[in-house]
């Protein structure tokens, strides 16, 4: 009984804290000064149409590097914890004919859609992280339908390492060839709206997308055992 009272008190306290925020919240009617500067100079300085991509990859590129490190540490931790202990040999039943044919049609489409999302990260909504997750979803569908399927572990490791290394290498190139670390004008900015514009943003985002996709497939592979 005492535990229930404490729980209801905690919830009531949280309600009391959040109620003034919800009641008196009036949304702004003009942009904050920093966002206004991004809107005004973003396309000219960075060359990307998608302002969210421009902020993530160039203005706040260092935070994205930290985020990639967080994903890598999570994958390493999962691999370490799941690698000890015996693998259970369960009954692996083959799926029905409909599922197998469906996967054979869907898997190339899903992979192509994921690659499209992260290649066009600077023009349309989306980007590296979203595209990588879509790619991993495609591989997950494949593993659900063919439970005895194997994914080559060496290819995944090489892909992930090269993507991470390439991202840091492009950032270091920015120091020597352009303004600073992770500056994207090491390649010509081009005309905004074209596919090959915005300097190194498509390359950086493609590397991020490949890295996220291969890490998530690695997690799925560890969880399969």
């Amino acid at each position, binding site marked *: 009984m005492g535990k229930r009272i404490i*729980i209801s008190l*905690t*919830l009531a306290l*949280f*309600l009391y804290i*959040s109620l003034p*925020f*919800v*009641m008196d*919240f009036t*949304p*702004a*009617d*003009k*942009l*904050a000064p*920093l*966002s*206004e500067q*991004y*809107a*005004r100079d*973003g*396309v000219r300085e960075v060359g990307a*149409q*998608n*302002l*969210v991509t421009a*902020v*993530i990859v160039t203005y*706040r590129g260092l*935070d*994205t590097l930290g*985020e990639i490190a*967080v*994903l890598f*540490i*999570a994958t390493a*931790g*999962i691999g370490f*914890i*799941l690698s000890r*202990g015996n693998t259970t040999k369960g009954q692996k039943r083959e799926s029905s004919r409909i599922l197998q044919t469906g996967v054979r049609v869907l898997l190339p489409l899903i992979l192509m859609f994921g690659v499209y999302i992260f290649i066009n990260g600077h*023009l*349309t*909504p989306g*980007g590296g*992280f979203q595209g990588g997750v879509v790619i991993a979803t495609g591989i997950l569908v494949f593993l659900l339908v063919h439970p005895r399927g194997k994914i080559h572990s060496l290819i995944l490791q090489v892909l992930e390492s090269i993507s991470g290394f390439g991202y840091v290498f492009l950032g270091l190139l920015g120091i020597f060839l352009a303004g600073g670390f992770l500056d994207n004008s090491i390649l010509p900015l081009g005309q*905004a*709206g074209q596919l090959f514009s915005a300097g190194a943003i498509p390359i950086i985002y493609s590397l991020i997308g490949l890295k996220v996709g291969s890490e998530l497939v690695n*997690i799925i592979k560890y*969880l399969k055992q």
Partner: protein
Amino acid sequence: MQLVTALGFILVIIGIWGMLTRKNMIKIVIGFSLIDTGIHIIMVSIGYIKGRTAPIINEAVDRTNAAMEIVDPIPSVLVLTAIVIGLAVTALMLVYVTRLYKHKNSLNIDDYGELKW
């Protein structure tokens, strides 16, 4: 009163209640994921300005006057990073649940009392 912000806070409160009262370990992880989603909704709803469009400057937005026509892009950036970190933490929590289940074959958190004082 903003409806989306209120819904975000309701999600957070439901998540906290779920984490505190449920005994099944998977339900505790689901409660954590609800708290995460609620906070993301609150953060995105702060950047919204009424009547404006997404922060992508293509033919639909007048380029010279873009600051008058787009929604704030910065909360979306923060939420993008937060979603990835929420994914990493949820994945690690689920892996811990899997290993604990293999050890004692029970999903009830009352059976794992060895670390309690």
